[in-house]
């Protein structure tokens, strides 16, 4: 089928190489604009003063952490149903970035919690769920590294992320239930009631993170494709024709 023309690694490799830099440039620009707006333009919050600016990276990071996991689950469904190797490679490419965003969300959440509630870790519902999401990422990465046969690792990883993604809403719901049962803290990101000049930087930063994640995932999937297709014919003549421009010309 034509749609699978791009699903074969050999045709996707150059395509990814071409579009990844564009996303990187967009990410850098949006990131710069977002940081500028967030740090310089956004007004001081009457309650939390300057420290609230942390949400300009905390909230996008938390959203990205969740979004990337769900995108991985979508690729997982494709990997298991259409048996395309590329979708499981995309999963493997996205996972480290998703885990990074989760760590970033937890780190910035803790640093924001200390001045606001006096403790780095307040067992707040969203933060606890993000911590469990990090466990899911680590579980996936551990599983695919523990299985040697790539074909099995791909499918096992896909199944795990699909099962995990079914559980993510359940986890978020149960943690919220557990949190209201014990104490009522909650991260005060009342998104809607925020002053527009505060919401704008956050949106810009979110799109910056999207562009960044796409660029990094495409670059990493290129590395994964090369690692897996080392012996393939198309890889060999790929480098005979055009020596890589990054490092010195190879004999």
């Amino acid at each position: 089928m034509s749609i699978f023309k791009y699903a074969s690694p050999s045709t996707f490799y150059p395509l990814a190489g071409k579009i990844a830099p564009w996303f990187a440039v967009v990410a850098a620009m949006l990131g710069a604009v977002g940081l500028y707006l967030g740090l310089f333009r956004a007004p001081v919050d009457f309650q939390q003063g300057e420290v609230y600016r942390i949400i300009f990276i905390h909230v996008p990071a938390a959203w990205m952490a969740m979004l990337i996991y769900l995108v991985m689950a979508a690729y997982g469904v494709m990997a298991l149903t259409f048996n395309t190797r590329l979708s499981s490679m995309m999963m493997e490419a996205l996972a480290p970035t998703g885990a990074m965003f989760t760590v970033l969300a937890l780190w910035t959440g803790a640093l924001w919690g200390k001045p606001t509630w006096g403790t780095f870790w307040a067992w707040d519902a969203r933060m606890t769920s993000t911590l469990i999401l990090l466990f899911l990422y680590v579980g996936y990465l551990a599983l695919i590294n523990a299985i040697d046969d790539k074909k099995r690792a791909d499918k096992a990883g896909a199944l795990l992320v699909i099962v995990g993604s079914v559980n993510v809403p359940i986890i978020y719901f149960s943690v919220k239930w557990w949190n209201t049962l014990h104490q009522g803290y909650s991260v005060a990101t009342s998104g809607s009631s925020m002053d527009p000049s505060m919401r704008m930087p956050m949106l810009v930063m979110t799109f910056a993170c999207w562009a960044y994640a796409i660029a990094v995932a495409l670059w990493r999937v290129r590395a994964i494709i090369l690692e897996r297709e080392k012996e393939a014919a198309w890889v060999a003549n790929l480098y005979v024709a055009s020596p890589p421009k990054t490092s010195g010309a190879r004999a």
Partner: protein
Amino acid sequence: MIALAPPSLRVENLTLSRGGRPLFRRLGFAIRSGEALVLRGANGSGKTSLLRMLAGLTEADEGEIFWDESVCKTASAKLRLNALYLGHANALKDDLTAIENLADALSFDGVNVTQARQVDALERVGLSSRQHLVARRLSQGQKRRIGLARLVLSGKPLWLLDEPTNALDAEGVALFIRIIDEHLLAGGMACIATHLSMQIHAPMRELSLDEQVLLESSEAQAATPAAGINEVAGVDGAARVTHVAHIAQAAEAT
């Protein structure tokens, strides 16, 4: 009889690579009713993987398997219904006795066999006095014989056997030859992966996985020309003889 219309198994351009290393590429062959195909090849040449593919356990990278001329995905239920796969492992539970293991295996095969016939089968394979012995205390050869008893009773048309005679003594091997001859005579089919020579009397062909060359068995007297012939059974059953070089070329083209 095993089945009304004689079943046949045909395989076309089967490709499998393990850990980045291609085991075989665009492999094609057929097994007709009443015939045994013996898989030859060095260790790690993919004999077991090919058997497991025919058994519907392993998925091929490419290629189709035709059972009774209807194509089925390589790891499909239809294949599993008609095949009995005996791997290296004896597939016995150490805590169960010989008769319990046999009964369990047959019930999971979906076959209703009376206790009496199970005891007869165990007697036939020389385990009558040990049927209530826990499998842990049986020797490798005796465990293999439980597998033979299961073969006899399962009534599956296609037998996929991985080194069936290892750990069997001379008398055991003779017993195995008798059982498989009966099976083939009755119209059954078998695919046997082994490096030992098989004195099967029924028509037998050998497929060498190292060079992907299908050699006619001695009975068929087809002289093997110097270049080696890969006989790919056409749809109408007439053997289309294609030169091995052509196959190798096609393989590189993909």
